[in-house]
C-alpha cells in the first residue's frame, strides 16, 4: 500500500500497463524528459526509453493520426493531449478515423488505443486549459468515454482502458490530480479475474434515499461535499459516480432514481446540449411515473470558458448544487 495522488496513481498504472504489454507506447507533447506538464508520465521515458515514451512533434492531429497507424499494426498507443482545449486539432482524426475504423473494416481493424485528456477547470489557468469537451466525444459512436473521479479509480481504470480493445477517451479531472488515496500499487489490475469487465459500471459513491446526485470526474467530490452538507440539514442524498459516459450505466442510475424519485445531474461542461441532457431525457422516459420532480441540472454556463478570476461563478459548486437540490425537493 502507498499513499498516491491521482497523478501518481495514473503514472503507476501506466507503468504496470507498459510492463504487461511491450506494445504499449506513450505519445504526447513533453511527456518524456519533462514527464508531462502534470508529471503524470514522470520517470517513464527514463525507465522504458524513448521508443516507448515518445514526445512527438507539436501537432495533435499528427499525434493521434500516427497513433491510429501504430494501432493498425497491433500496437497500443496511449496518447496524452496536453490540455482539453488542444484536442480539437485532432478532432477530425478522432471522429472520422478513431471512432469509425472498426466499423468501416467490418471488425478487421481494431484500434486498441487510449487518448488521455486532462480536463475541466478550477485551477486558475488561462484560456483553453479548463474546458470540458466530453459531450462531443460521447455523441460520437465508436468511442468509449470514461473519467475517473478519485485516485483508486484512476489507477485501475487507466490499466483497464489500455487493455481494452476499443478506443477509449480517458478524461482526467486535472483539478483532482493532487487528491490522495491509499492504493495497493503493486497490483497489475489486469491480473484480476474481472479484468476490465467492470470498467464501464457506475459506482454508488454515497448511499442515500431522498435524491440522487449524478456526476463524473471532478464533480463527484463536489457532490459528495454537497451530500455531506445536506446531511446536516437532514437530507439524505445518494451520489452516483458514472465513471463512464459511453457506455453509460443507466441501469444503476434508474435503480437509484426509482428509489429516490428525484435527481440532479452535475457537470462542468455547459448545460446546453451537455451530457446531463441525455441523462435527464432518458431517465425521465424510463421513470416517467416515479419522478417526483423534473431532473434538474447544475452545469457550466453557456459562454466560452471565462477568465480564471471568475471561473468560480462558471463552475458548479457546493452551494449551487444544494440550491438545485432544494428546488428539486420542493416539488
Amino acid at each position, binding site marked *: 500500500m502507498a499513499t498516491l495522488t491521482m497523478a501518481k496513481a495514473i503514472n503507476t498504472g501506466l507503468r504496470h500497463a507498459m510492463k504487461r504489454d511491450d506494445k504499449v507506447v506513450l505519445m504526447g507533447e513533453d511527456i518524456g524528459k519533462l514527464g508531462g506538464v502534470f508529471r503524470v508520465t514522470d520517470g517513464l521515458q527514463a525507465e522504458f526509453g524513448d521508443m516507448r515514451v515518445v514526445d512527438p512533434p507539436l501537432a495533435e*492531429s*499528427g499525434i493521434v493520426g*500516427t*497513433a491510429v*497507424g501504430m494501432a493498425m499494426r497491433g500496437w497500443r498507443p496511449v496518447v496524452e493531449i496536453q490540455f482539453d482545449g488542444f484536442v480539437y486539432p485532432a478532432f477530425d482524426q478522432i471522429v472520422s478515423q478513431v471512432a469509425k475504423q472498426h466499423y468501416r*473494416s467490418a471488425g478487421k481493424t481494431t484500434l486498441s488505443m487510449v487518448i488521455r485528456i486532462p480536463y475541466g477547470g478550477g485551477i486558475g489557468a488561462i484560456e483553453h486549459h479548463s474546458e470540458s469537451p466530453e459531450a462531443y466525444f460521447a455523441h460520437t459512436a465508436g468511442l468509449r468515454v470514461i473519467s475517473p473521479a478519485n485516485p483508486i479509480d484512476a489507477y485501475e481504470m487507466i490499466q483497464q482502458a489500455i487493455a481494452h480493445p476499443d478506443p477509449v477517451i480517458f478524461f482526467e479531472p486535472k483539478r483532482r490530480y493532487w487528491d490522495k488515496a491509499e492504493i495497493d500499487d503493486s497490483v497489475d489490475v489486469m491480473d484480476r479475474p474481472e479484468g476490465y469487465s467492470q470498467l464501464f459500471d457506475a459506482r454508488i459513491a454515497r448511499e442515500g434515499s431522498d435524491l440522487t446526485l449524478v456526476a463524473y470526474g471532478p464533480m463527484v467530490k463536489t457532490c459528495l461535499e454537497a451530500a455531506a452538507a445536506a446531511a446536516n440539514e437532514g437530507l439524505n442524498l445518494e451520489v452516483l459516480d458514472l465513471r463512464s459516459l459511453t457506455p453509460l450505466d443507466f441501469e444503476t442510475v434508474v435503480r437509484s432514481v426509482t428509489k429516490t424519485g428525484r435527481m440532479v445531474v452535475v457537470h462542468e461542461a455547459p448545460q446546453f446540449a451537455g451530457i446531463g441532457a441525455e441523462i435527464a431525457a432518458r431517465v425521465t422516459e424510463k421513470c416517467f411515473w416515479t419522478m417526483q420532480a423534473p431532473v434538474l441540472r447544475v452545469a457550466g454556463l453557456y459562454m466560452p470558458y471565462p477568465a480564471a478570476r471568475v471561473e468560480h461563478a462558471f463552475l458548479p459548486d457546493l452551494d449551487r448544487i444544494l440550491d438545485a437540490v432544494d428546488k428539486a425537493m420542493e416539488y
Partner: protein
Amino acid sequence: MLTAPDDLIQLLTHEGKRVTHPDFSLDISDDEIRALYRDLFLVRRFDNEATALQRQGELALWAQCQGQEAAQIGAGRALSAGDFVFPSYREHGIAWTRGVDPVQILGMFRGTTNGGWDPYAHNFGLYTVVIGNQCLHAVGYAMAGLRENAGDVVLTCFGDGGSNQGDVSEAFVFAGVYNAPVVFLCQNNQYAISEPNTRQMRVPIYQRSSGFGFPGYRVDGNDVLAMFAVMRFAYEHARSGNGPVLVEAFTYRIGNHTTSDDATRYRDAAEVEYWKERDPILRVKRYLDSVKTPQSFFDEVEAAAEELAVRIRSGARQLADPTLDEMFTNVYSQPHPLVQQEHQEMTEYFAQFGGMQSPHSEGGH
C-alpha cells in the same frame, strides 16, 4: 491549356520510344513490359466496367482512375509483398497489384459497405475518403514497423489538392523526424475536382518535401516504366534507412472526378484530347508493336479483360445489402449496452413489418 512539362523523369515517350535518364535506369525485358501492359489494360477495363455499372444504376457512384493507370501499376508492382499501402479512394490500379478483388472495391460505391476488403489480407488499407487522413496512418504504421525492425516500407497516396491538408504536412513532419520508411505518392492528375493546380499550389508539389528534410521527384506519371523505376528506387531508399521520399506522378484525370461530376464545366475538350494522346496504355502498346509483339498476345489480354468484365458485372449485382444484424455489428469490438438496446428495439420495430424493408432513398446527387 495544360501541357506536360519537360522536366519529368521519363523512360518511355508517349510515342512509345524507350529513352534513358541520367539518374534512373530500368533493366526490364519485353515480356515484363507485356506483363505491365496486361495490368494496365485489365485495370482500364475494370474502371470502364465500373463506370458503366454506375450508369446502369448498379453503383451509386464511381471514382474513375482512367489516365492514372501507369502511375498506379508502376507504384504497385515495385512494392514487395510485406509492404503496406494506405490509399486514397482512386487507387484501383494499386489495389489490383495487391490482389484485392475488384468486386470488393465496388462495395462502397454500391453502398453495401463503408469498406469492403480485409486490409491485412492484402496489405492494402481501406480507401480513405477524408482527404489526407491516411498519410498519418501510413507514418504511424511505419513507426510501429521501425519498432519491430520489420524492414518493410509503407506507401501512401494523395492527390494534388490533398497535398494541402494539414494532415499531409504533419505526416511529412513525423516521417522526417522519425526517419520513417514511408513513400509519399502524390498523383498529380491536375485537378482537385474542378480546381486546377494553379489554385492549389505556388510551385510544383514535388518540391514540398525538401523543407521537411527529404527528397522529392517528379515523374511522368503516364510512363509505367519511369514510375516503376523511380518507385523502386524510393522504396529501396526508405527500406535502407534513408527516410521518406516524395514522388509526384505528373498525370491527368481523363474522366470526371466521379460519376457525379461534370468536367466539361471547368476544362476544355482540347486539353483532354491532348492528354488522351499521352495515354499511359497507348504508349506501351506503341512500344510493344515496335518490338513486334504478336497479335495473339493482345488477343489473350482482350479475352482476359472480357472475362474480368463479366465477372465484375455479375459480382457487382451479387453484392448483398447488409442485414439489420450486420448493420449493428462492429460498432465496437466488445458489447456496448446502448448499441445492443437500439439493435433490439429496431429488430422488434421491423418485426411489425416482417423485417427490414428494402432500401429507398430520396433525391440522389
